[in-house]
């Protein structure tokens, strides 16, 4: 049994860690690339949302590499995500691939049974440890990413943060025990701390909000965060894979890490509509109140919850007086155009800030 699952940012780390500890072989899809996107869009329905296409591409590439078991999440609406697994299954079966599909949904007892089967003859304690380890590893990875976001605008040599971050990511990915992970963390932190910085700069603060998948997957958002960072902006974002996973658990649904966004969004959106809509709005509100300079809102073309968010953000923008740049992405989005738009946006924010400083005097 060779397990695979689609990429979503760094989330693959979690699955890989857990199943390796179960003693299973994991075949991660190759890093998302042009080929992934082409393959995915060739076989997907034309108007499906971008994440479906890219993850389908991931699965095809993993199957080509010999994976024979696919693990997918399948929530139940209201958005399209919950139906991904069914649809991709239909498409892959029509392409004559042979594999077994395992889906995890909100039916917890059922999930446990499925996991138990995957866990070979491991006992409950070992299963729990595997999950704890996977989660910790993912958390460590995210800590590094956060740190990279903070220091990138100060870097003296352009690209040095990214280089260090890639190295840390490699170090962390290699570890498969708690002890090694602790060591890796220390090493990774010192690597990132070692990037030479110019602390006299005063970077713009930008919040990046939007649909989970496109925010988390750098290839798909054309590395918006790195680009903004290298233009001298400090990036914050409300969307993190660990938070996403925690809020999928029934108890934390309401009380989990996303509660503050939900509360902040309440005056603008009275009803949860699915997807990241409420986090996009809540995040924007909190960042605006926190004195950020601007917001970049990322959404795949035709993304339902984010269209709702976009409508509502037009009001938030006026009321809280914060510039918002909406980037709608699809498989044809071009690098060049995106860079121009980002540069124009950063320019605007700088001018705004200078005006404010003069006005305050």
């Amino acid at each position: 049994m060779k397990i695979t699952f689609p990429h979503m940012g760094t989330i693959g780390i979690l699955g890989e860690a857990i199943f390796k500890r179960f003693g299973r072989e994991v075949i991660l899809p190759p890093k998302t690339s042009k080929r992934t996107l082409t393959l995915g869009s060739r076989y997907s329905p034309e108007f499906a949302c971008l994440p479906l296409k890219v993850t389908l591409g991931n699965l095809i590439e993993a199957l080509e590499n010999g994976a024979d078991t696919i693990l997918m999440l399948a929530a139940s609406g209201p958005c399209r995500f919950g139906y991904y697994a069914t649809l991709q299954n239909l498409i892959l079966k029509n392409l004559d691939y042979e594999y077994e599909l395992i889906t995890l949904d909100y039916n917890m007892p059922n999930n446990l049974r499925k996991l138990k089967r995957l866990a070979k003859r491991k006992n409950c304690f070992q299963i729990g440890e595997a999950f704890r380890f996977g989660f910790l590893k993912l958390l460590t990875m995210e800590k590094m990413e956060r740190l990279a976001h903070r220091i990138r605008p100060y870097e003296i040599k352009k690209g040095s943060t990214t280089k260090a971050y890639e190295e840390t990511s490699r170090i962390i990915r290699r570890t498969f025990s708690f002890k090694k992970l602790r060591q890796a963390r220390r090493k990774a932190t010192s690597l990132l701390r070692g990037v030479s910085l110019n602390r006299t700069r005063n970077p713009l603060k930008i919040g990046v909000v939007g649909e989970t998948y496109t925010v988390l997957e750098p290839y798909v958002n054309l590395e918006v965060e790195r680009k903004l960072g290298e233009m001298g902006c400090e990036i914050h974002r409300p969307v993190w894979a660990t938070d996403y996973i925690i809020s999928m658990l029934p108890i934390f649904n309401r009380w989990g890490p996303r509660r503050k966004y939900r509360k902040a969004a309440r005056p603008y959106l009275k009803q949860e509509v699915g997807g990241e809509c409420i986090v996009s709005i809540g995040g924007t509100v909190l960042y605006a109140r926190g004195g950020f300079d601007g917001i970049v809102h990322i959404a795949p073309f035709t993304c339902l919850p984010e269209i709702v968010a976009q409508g509502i953000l037009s009001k938030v923008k006026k009321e809280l007086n914060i510039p918002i740049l909406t980037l709608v992405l699809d498989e044809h989005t071009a690098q060049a155009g995106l860079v121009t738009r980002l540069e124009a946006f950063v320019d605007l924010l700088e001018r705004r800030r200078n005006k404010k400083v003069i006005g305050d005097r």
Partner: protein
Amino acid sequence: MAIKVGIPRALLYYRFYPLWKTFFTELGAEVIVSEPTTQEIFKKGLKKFVGDTCLPIKMVFGHVITLADKVDYLFIPRLVSIERDTCLCPHFAGLPDVLCAIMPDLPPILDIHFNVRKKGATMKSIYEAGKRFNKNPFKVYRAYQKAQREYEKFLKRIKDGITPQEAIKIFDGEEVSPPEKKKGGLNIALIGNPYTVYDSFSSLDIIQRLRKLGARIYTSEMIPDEIIEEKVRTLSKKIYWSFGKETVGSAFHFLDSPEIDGLIYIISFECGPDSLLKEIVDDKARKNKRVAYMSLVIDEHTGETGMDTRLDAFIEMIKRRRAKK
């Protein structure tokens, strides 16, 4: 003077209008419905909208604008789900908030969380809706019961074989002569979201066009719920969108019924659920050699001539298939 409640002729108007209208009229309000969609109404809405979305949501903006200065309340329920186990697309749950955000000067919106069909709306949301017109919960409840009776009559009329548009006309007291049954005529099934199919602007009046070509029309509303449930059970995961379930369930049913000659799936461009479900229906239809199938993806730029050409070709295809048999 009676309080005026405005109902946009869009979205779930095509499914629930008799229910809503009876309810508000019973409580002494005057119900005003916006005019059928025209290019002009549509353009008005388009100007306001931020971003890009499906045709039906763009249309509702136009309707709301034309109603805004004529009414005291706008009735735009917050429809999260209209039956157990399924929900509506995210647009429905967010619509009242989006409308408020984009057009702050609208009359107050009655945005009630409605949950009808299976168990009836919850008592609380019914009272929420009615209390502005009559404070007495019993009166409100009675009005609702009456509304539900009217609604059931309306559903029954559709099940007997007329389209929802015509059933609404009958409800409003107009005369509708049921299309005559012609021997040897073509039987064509139309599936898709009700507000795309029955709005004559968005669907370019496809029903009349097909009838002119001599076809008898079947729609998913005519199929009993049990059959739809049974048909979708063959899928590995339940479809959790109400209209999606109806669409796919009835598509499967039509593909299996011997009297149906053709199946047309009408989809609005950029519709989220349908973009995925189309694949499932396409797949099933491809494997079916008997029923002719076509999907029409429409948006505001779809032209009449293009539509006519495609329909003509489709009818030709059916006739050829028949001749072969």
